[in-house]
């Protein structure tokens, strides 16, 4: 928690010095984004195994997985008690807690963080639920931008086929809270089309690397390796200074 402007100023200087020090191994943040059924979790696992074999110290974080907030969301989803605003705010809280407890500490230690879904998931789903993009984006401030974002692009039909091949989509996954469609499969098809439309806009706005997720698993994995090797040498993004400084100042205040 930032306690004062002076503490925040000192934290900013410390963050810049830490992440731009050429003698220090810099942490990297790689995000995997895409709709359900796009195969990103399969790719994330393959990528992690490869990175470990290459000697990287890897940390993985998944969407809606904070030990503190996840139980709160889970119990409310179970009774279908969430409005779009509550859904959005609780997922924002879960994300914020993971940024502060998992992602930033790992980056600070020079580790490579793989995020299986990042804030773009919140943006795509919340906007598909009818919320205002500007309002939702600001909930995630101070923004932390990944070094690389892979967007796994599939059509709504492919997403629907892959998801429903093995299971029935759950109430919120199918967007039944906003479609008013009783059949989960039909609702999913309608909702995922909206989500994909939002993802496609976000992929353009935020310069994500689009991976054709209709390709074979092997082809996608090879492409990801190549893109990672080309992209990992990017310099540290100064856009992240606010997020890091606030976290550092908060650590100081918590001690």
């Amino acid at each position: 928690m930032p306690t004062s402007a002076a503490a925040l100023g000192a934290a900013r200087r410390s963050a810049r010095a830490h992440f731009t020090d050429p003698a220090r191994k810099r942490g990297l943040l790689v995000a995997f984004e895409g709709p359900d059924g796009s195969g990103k979790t399969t790719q994330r696992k393959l990528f992690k195994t490869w990175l470990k074999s290459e000697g990287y110290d890897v940390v993985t974080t998944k969407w809606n997985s904070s030990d503190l907030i996840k139980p709160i969301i889970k119990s409310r989803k179970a009774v279908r008690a969430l409005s779009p605003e509550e859904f959005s705010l609780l997922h924002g809280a879960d994300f914020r807690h993971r940024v502060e407890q998992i992602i930033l500490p790992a980056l600070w230690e020079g580790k490579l963080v793989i995020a299986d879904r990042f804030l773009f998931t919140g943006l795509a789903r919340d906007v598909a639920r009818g919320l205002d993009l500007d309002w939702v984006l600001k909930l995630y401030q101070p923004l932390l931008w990944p070094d690389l974002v892979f967007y796994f692009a599939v059509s709504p039909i492919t997403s629907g086929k892959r998801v429903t091949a093995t299971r029935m989509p759950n109430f919120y996954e199918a967007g039944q809270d906003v479609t008013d469609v009783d059949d989960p499969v039909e609702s999913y098809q309608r909702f995922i089309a909206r989500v994909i439309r939002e993802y496609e806009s976000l992929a353009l706005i935020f310069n994500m690397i689009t991976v054709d997720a209709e390709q074979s698993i092997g082809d996608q994995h090879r492409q990801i390796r190549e893109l990672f090797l080309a992209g990992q040498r990017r310099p540290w993004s100064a856009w992240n200074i606010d997020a890091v400084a606030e976290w550092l100042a908060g650590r100081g205040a918590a001690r």
Partner: protein
Amino acid sequence: MKASRARLVSVDGVDASAVIAAARRAIDRPGRGGVSHWDASGIFQDLCVADAAAGAPSARTLLLLYAADLAFRLRWEIRPALAAGRTVVAAPYVDTAVAFGRAAGVPVGWLTNLFRFAPPAAERRFVTATRGAASGEGFVGLASQRVHGCDRGARRRLIGSAAAHLRIEAKRRARRPKR
């Protein structure tokens, strides 16, 4: 045609007991209105039983949870009561959370955006007592405990700063000419 009595009154302060007492006084005629309390959704109750190993939430995380609880209260308590033409006293409402956020150094712009979904209260009241918060009661008390843990001095400073922000806001409101 009868004029609607629908009216949203906010009562904000860092001392939860004093805020509840003031909220009860704010309902001019019993049976004509009700009080919407903090944590009607039970989010913070659930947070209290979470494992300490999950890590301390930051001020921003706690404010996102406060906003989620407020969205719940608006949906199930405040808006239905207003639609039925009743007086609703929201105790606390937006000002308490904003005061806590400002005391914790969270930017005003972020706080303003966060609570953009909440309709403005027709009347805003402020309670300046601080004792209940120091014992960990209410949102500010609990949030200060969560952020600062056992450091009582830091907790007291945070509560004091939040109370000061509320006093400033109350004075600002008092100076504004009534319509």
